[in-house]
């Protein structure tokens, strides 16, 4: 959708991401997806009267890791708050969250802009909260599962710095990649460990005040985020163009009908009566923790992109492909460490490695051979001992068999013949059976050279080193 140029969209995103902890945030139940309903539950996460929450230290550590990476200020003291509302997925009648004093304040995330130059998207805050349970609705009743109740969540709130659906999607991709690099979240949108609400408003271009905003909930894929935001921008623009007023509302994205529709009246929806959680004293990071985490925080996508540009001079496209997932870049770098030239390593990773990884339902590390084995294969190509095509065949076989490079090359008979005497013999055989063509060639029909190369390759079942074949044929065909 092309927004009418007289108007501009202003978008802020709220992302909820589940943290990769072993246990829940306030009790010792497993924080695990996929168990049968109500298996990972206890009196604490089911909100039984009289229970007390005890905070999981790992949640603090992971949140600080995200906050430091996002250049946020880490509050020395932050406060848990109760957010009160009624819904059957919330057994206590309140969610433990943070309100006035979140753990991380401000900061920004660098997102690659349309022109390739990084753009800073500012963050308002990052706070800690507990997830709710899950409902499914039947015609006659609703069903409740509390496995997810008390799973640790981060809410990451951006400033309204985004101006198009594409930009919003780019921000989300960057944020998700960052969380995955940091090993803070698996970012799995289908399983709900990375969820997004979008606040969208439209205003006359150049206006400094924000228009009334719509909050769109239920965006569980990048595709839906883009579609829903575009739909909402178009809807609000049409309202304003017709001289109407946009109503402040919460909309639900309907993936089937590809439209947003109002969810419920705002009147009571946002009256959560927050107050400080009396069961939890304020959250204080032990002395030295922030610095210790800063020292161990892994590299993030923006830093890796800058390093690849600087050290390897790769194209913007190659850098983008190699850094989207941490494991892909890790593999690329492992190939270089094993002695492969960075260009060959980049090409191989972007083509063969990603092809194999995408075709597999296994994580990358298990879908493809160890980097040392792939490096062996690529060195054989460099030494002309196998052809590039042979290497691809071997690699595909190794992905399936798990065999090492040398064994695979020999089992598939891929070793390339570079021995001049053997190749000369094959050339002689071809030239002696194609005397007419030889005469034509010598009469000036030089295009036939490729024909002779093809015949020799066929005779040697593709194993001859093409470079040697070229040399030998040139010599033999010389008048």
């Amino acid at each position: 959708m092309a927004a009418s140029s007289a108007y501009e969209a202003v978008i802020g995103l709220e992302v909820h991401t589940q943290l990769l902890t072993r246990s829940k945030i306030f009790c010792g139940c497993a924080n695990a997806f996929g168990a049968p309903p109500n298996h990972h539950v206890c009196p604490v996460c089911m909100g039984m009267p009289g229970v007390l929450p005890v905070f999981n230290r790992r949640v603090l550590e992971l949140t600080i890791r995200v906050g430091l990476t996002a250049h946020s200020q880490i509050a020395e003291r932050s406060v848990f708050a109760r957010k009160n509302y009624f819904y059957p997925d919330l057994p206590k009648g309140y969610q433990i969250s943070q309100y006035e004093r979140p753990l991380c304040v401000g900061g920004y995330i660098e997102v690659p802009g349309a022109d390739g130059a990084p753009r800073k998207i500012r963050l308002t805050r990052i706070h800690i909260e507990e997830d709710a349970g899950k409902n499914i609705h039947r015609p006659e009743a609703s069903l409740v599962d509390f496995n997810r109740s008390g799973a640790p969540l981060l809410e990451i709130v951006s400033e309204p710095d985004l101006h198009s659906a594409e930009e919003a999607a780019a921000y989300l991709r960057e944020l998700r990649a960052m969380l995955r690099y940091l090993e803070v979240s698996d970012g799995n949108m289908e399983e709900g460990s990375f969820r997004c609400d979008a606040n969208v408003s439209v205003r006359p271009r150049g206006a400094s005040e924000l228009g009334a905003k719509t909050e769109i909930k239920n965006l569980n894929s990048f595709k839906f985020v883009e579609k829903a935001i575009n739909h909402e921008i178009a809807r609000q623009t049409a309202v304003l163009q017709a001289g109407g007023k946009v109503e402040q509302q919460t909309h639900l994205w309907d993936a089937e009908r590809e439209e947003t529709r109002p969810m419920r009246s705002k009147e009571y929806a946002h009256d959560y009566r927050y107050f400080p959680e009396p069961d939890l004293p304020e959250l204080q990071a032990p002395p030295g923790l922030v610095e210790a985490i800063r020292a161990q925080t892994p590299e993030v996508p923006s830093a890796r992109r800058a390093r690849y540009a600087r050290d390897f001079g790769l194209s913007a496209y190659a850098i983008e492909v190699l850094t989207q997932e941490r494991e892909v870049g890790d593999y690329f770098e492992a190939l270089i460490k094993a002695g492969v030239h960075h260009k060959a390593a980049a090409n191989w990773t972007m083509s063969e490695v990603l092809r194999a990884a995408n075709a597999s339902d296994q994580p990358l590390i298990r879908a493809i051979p160890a980097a040392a084995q792939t490096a062996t294969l690529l060195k054989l190509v460099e030494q002309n001992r196998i052809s590039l095509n042979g290497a691809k065949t071997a690699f595909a076989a190794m992905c399936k068999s798990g065999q090492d490079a040398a064994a695979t090359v020999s089992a598939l008979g891929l070793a390339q013949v570079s021995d001049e005497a053997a190749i000369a013999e094959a050339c002689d055989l071809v030239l002696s059976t194609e005397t007419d063509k030889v005469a034509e060639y010598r009469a000036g029909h030089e295009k036939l050279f490729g024909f002779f190369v093809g015949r020799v390759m066929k005779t040697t079942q593709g194993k001859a080193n093409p470079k040697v074949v070229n040399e030998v044929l040139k010599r033999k065909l010389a008048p």
Partner: protein
Amino acid sequence: MPVRMAETKIGLDGVRHVARLARLELDAEQEARLQHDLSAILEYIEKLNELDLGGVEPTAQVGEAGTPMRDDVVTNQPAAEAALANAPAREGFWFKVPKIIE
């Protein structure tokens, strides 16, 4: 105790709003009593305004400084049957509740 209307800190509208948020159904007599009680509480809290707290940092709690923390260890075993033992209704391992209408 008679309701002193002149001193109420919260109107009947306020009482009804809070009651609705708390999913409470009140009759007129209860509304009036709660208006009185809530007003008395608010008045009591207002006493704090008489103190000079200029140099005091806001605090949410008194007592312990710093929430106690536990290590990230799973200590609870799956306990679906225990969890569902007192459920008025269930379907498989799910709690079954009256249909939720958005």
